[in-house]
């Protein structure tokens, strides 16, 4: 199996979730994170001083998939999350040796 990790813009989360559902992915795990890259942060002003916030809010999605699905899932995410503007994010794929469903103890693909 593979772990697909995607860093995307937060407002794209709902769309990506729906696209993955439509593809047939039934589960995922999401967390908040901050990104640093080409996309610059913003300035804030408080009482006579200005602050630059370097990091930009991002959402981080993790989906475990079967090997054969990995490329397609990456594709779905990339297509849906794309706005064509700087800061759209990254998606990467890593090998997973085993997965277990906590509820049942099942191993491997059936645990998804």
């Amino acid at each position, binding site marked *: 199996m593979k772990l697909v990790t995607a860093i995307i*813009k*937060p*407002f794209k989360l*709902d769309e990506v979730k729906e696209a993955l559902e439509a593809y047939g992915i039934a589960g995922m795990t999401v967390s908040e994170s*901050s990104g640093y890259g080409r*996309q*610059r*942060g*913003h*300035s*804030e*002003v*408080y009482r*006579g*001083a*200005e*602050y*630059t*916030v*370097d*990091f*930009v809010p991002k959402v981080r999605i993790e989906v475990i998939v079967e090997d054969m699905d990995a490329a397609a899932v990456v594709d779905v995410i990339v297509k849906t999350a*794309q*706005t*064509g*503007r*700087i*800061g759209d994010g990254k998606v990467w794929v890593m090998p997973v040796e085993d997965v277990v469903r906590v509820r049942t103890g099942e191993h491997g693909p059936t645990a998804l």
Partner: protein
Amino acid sequence: MSSLLAFAAAEPPPTLDSGNTAWMLTSAALVLFMTIPGLALFYGGLNRSKGVLNMMMMSFGPFGLIGVIYVLWGYSMSFGSKDIGGIIASPLEFWGLKGMLPGEPGATVLQDGGIPTLIFVGFQFTFAAITVALISGALSDRVKFSTWMVFSALWVTLAYFPLAHMVWGGGLLSGSADGIAAKLFGLTDGAATIAPIDFAGGTVVHINAGMAGLVLALIVGRRKGFGKVPMRPHNVTLVMLGSGILWFGWYGFNAGSALAANDSAALAWVNTTVATCAAMLGWLVVEKLREGHATSVGAASGIVAGLVAITPACGNVTPLGAIGVGVIAGAAAAMAVGLKYRLGFDDSLDVVGVHLVAGFWGTISLGIFARGTGLAYGDWRQLVVQLIIALVALVFTAVVTTVIALALKATMGWRISEDDEVAGIDQAEHAESAYDFGGRGAGRVSPLGQHEPDARHHHEIDSEVHA
């Protein structure tokens, strides 16, 4: 403010009453507290977190502006003696509050309860300011701050001051001999036999603000994603806090409108309390029956609906009548707030559902419950009078607000860019974010003035847009 009609005509009593003055000094401060920070927190908490500061600034900003305006021409236009067609008074008569300061000969004019004119001015200012702030709830997350400030100045001058004059300053909607009520059912002792009742501002404040909110919601348009994306309250503790401050301050609003510390103020106090309690229960029961849960946002909203409805009525109904006014207000508003999704207008924080609905109900409820003259006491004429003033106020405001709003749409424009709306109006309009609990994620600090003032604002933001 029941005694204002009398005041408009009567000569002032010669001595100051320190007890009444103490109560008015307190009441005026209480009404200020309703807006700053009460309403700002109530609305801010109901908003999404990316626009909470803008929502608060939509109360704070106009408050500052109207404070200056009220001293310059607002008081004079509302309560001056140089009436123009029953609609407005001359802005020049008391320009800059001239002639009213301690020691000035004609200026130590006292209201009939023996209070200094100046504290009456202060008290009335706070009403004008909160009325404008109330409207802002219809406009969250999408309006240019500059347009909103200009709107505030125009609207308070062209919609609020006239209505205050008409209702409380002896104009068309008052009980004066030239008013509509007198035309309808005749005069007794030189005033309308069946005088319209608006003790503390059902028409002037709530119908006025509610209708303006509806017009603006329609003209300005919806938030991006309205009805699709959830836009739920980001901080309910602020909502509860705001509703508590509003309730507390409302004693200044309602019992203060007796303009004296007397029997009438005490009745207003008790009626305000019990109607609000009943309205909270009314809202919660509707929720419980309809959705299966009584919510805390519902309790806070019921409180506001009850306060709004009892506002015109608090001096003229019995405590049992106040329970009736309240419970119906709470239930009706609870049913009204969902309408915006069906009808498709984005009255973001329910100015229409709460203030227009409950304000209208409160005004006509007097036709039923007013001691002595209501339907419940066998007379139908008060109901007619109340319906008429409510409708006239509604139409007047709708027209004036539409004109102002369209003029601004054509000139300054109302909406911030879509990019800015998605990224959040707090950053776009105020260059701020409300919370920083983690203390991480900020890079450099530079004192202002060390680089060019124009080279650095949020064009750096690569705003996040729906493609």
